[in-house]
């Protein structure tokens, strides 16, 4: 199996490092031709405006949409925003997932945080998944074909659970950074999606 990591900007090296530990062949993708032969693609954390602009300038938007029609794509944080169909402001989006996201939903960096999540569908789901949220987005609305995998709830006063991980077919969106915490369960989950 060969997995691409979109390497326009952001923490693509951190994703590659996890893929290396799992023994998965990885390739950095900066140009459309580099999508050929990949079984899946990870869009890393970074600045979604920067990634969107570079993807537009280098002709990646349509090739990424075509790739997503048949192969698996996982977006973390900025990558989840880029996968969405609505980010509540004007910026380039792939529109591959029927989700609306709110950027910087928790506020500025001072509100960035770590927390334990319970994620449905991954191996050993009862073991908490330690997650890092950095100027993170929230998934505000999910379409009928979208499955919610994890939400924030509990002590922080919000009335409704707030969605931070979701799947639609072979698309996966997480608003946190599994590439920063050394827990490979979501990477393995995505490998299975790409393999299926």
């Amino acid at each position: 199996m060969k997995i691409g990591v979109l390497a326009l900007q952001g923490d693509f090296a951190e994703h590659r490092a996890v893929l290396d530990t799992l023994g998965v062949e990885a390739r950095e993708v900066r140009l459309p031709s580099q999508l050929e032969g990949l079984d899946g693609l990870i869009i890393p954390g970074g600045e979604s405006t920067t990634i969107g602009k570079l993807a537009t300038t280098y002709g990646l938007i349509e090739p990424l949409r075509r790739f997503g029609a048949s192969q698996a794509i996982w977006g973390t944080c900025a990558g989840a925003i880029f996968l969405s169909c609505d980010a509540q402001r004007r910026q380039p989006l792939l529109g591959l997932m029927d989700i609306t996201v709110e950027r910087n939903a928790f506020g500025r960096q001072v509100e960035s945080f770590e927390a334990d999540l319970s994620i449905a569908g991954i191996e050993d789901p009862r073991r908490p998944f330690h997650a890092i949220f950095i100027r993170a987005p929230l998934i505000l609305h999910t379409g009928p074909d979208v499955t919610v995998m994890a939400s924030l709830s509990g002590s922080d006063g919000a009335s409704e659970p707030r969605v931070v991980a979701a799947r639609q077919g072979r698309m996966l969106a997480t608003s946190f950074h599994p590439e920063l915490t050394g827990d490979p369960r979501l990477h393995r989950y995505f490998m299975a999606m790409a393999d299926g």
Partner: protein
Amino acid sequence: MEKERGTFAVKKGLAQMLKGGVIMDVVTPEHARIAEEAGAVAVMALERVPADIRAHGGVARMSDPALIEQIMESVTIPVMAKCRIGHFVEAQILEALGVDYIDESEVLTPADEAHHIDKHPFRIPFVCGCRDLGEALRRIGEGAAMIRTKGEAGTGDVIEAVRHARAVLGEIRKLQNTPDEELMTYSKQIGAPFELVRETKELGRLPVVNFAAGGLATPADAALMMQLGVDGVFVGSGIFKSGDPARRAKAIVEATTHFDNPEILAEVSKGLGEPMIGIGVSDLPQAERLAVRGW
């Protein structure tokens, strides 16, 4: 569910999200919007870019909080701001404003001739400049969550940024071949915390993100620093002191992404108009050099 804010992982994590990107100095909300539109990953909010601080002379201090707030309101990307070396109250004020990163910067006039800020207690992360590995690890020991080369700000001359990047990255390469029993004496020699020296040897890189800064003015300069092995670049005076800032800013962003693709670098370098005029660092009297500030 417990939320932990202000942890070192969260502070360091924001810098990891900036990797492969360009952080641009801006002095007005209009500049900030141009930078965001060009694809900057963050902006540094300032009253004057370093070239103007040099020309202006006098004491350079933290910028007006009102200006920093206006810039924070004008863009969605992270906003950084500078405080003077050792001036922990300026840092407290920047934290109260809610900026995303604080640069304890030699570009401003130092407030303490012997000590930097203890950066651990702050919930906002800090970036600090360095000239070599010892200085980088001292700043990380004090709590810096991101490192940049000092270079020589406001000159448009990349030579000092190259010198500092080669020093840090070269010393790490040598450290990887240093036997463990020599690490304590090496730590003593370079004035760095032993545990961080050992961690750097194990990682084969600094334990935090490492950007280039100080004198970068062209797309080729940005790609040069990336090929030397830094994680991303700061461009200060080089953009808004040039003839066509919007175009140059976009070209530097693209050159940072495609740093190892000479065909793309050639394309983005075409017709950018006048670069900043600049000052050769070798013409600069010792007293006017900013990089020597820091202890």
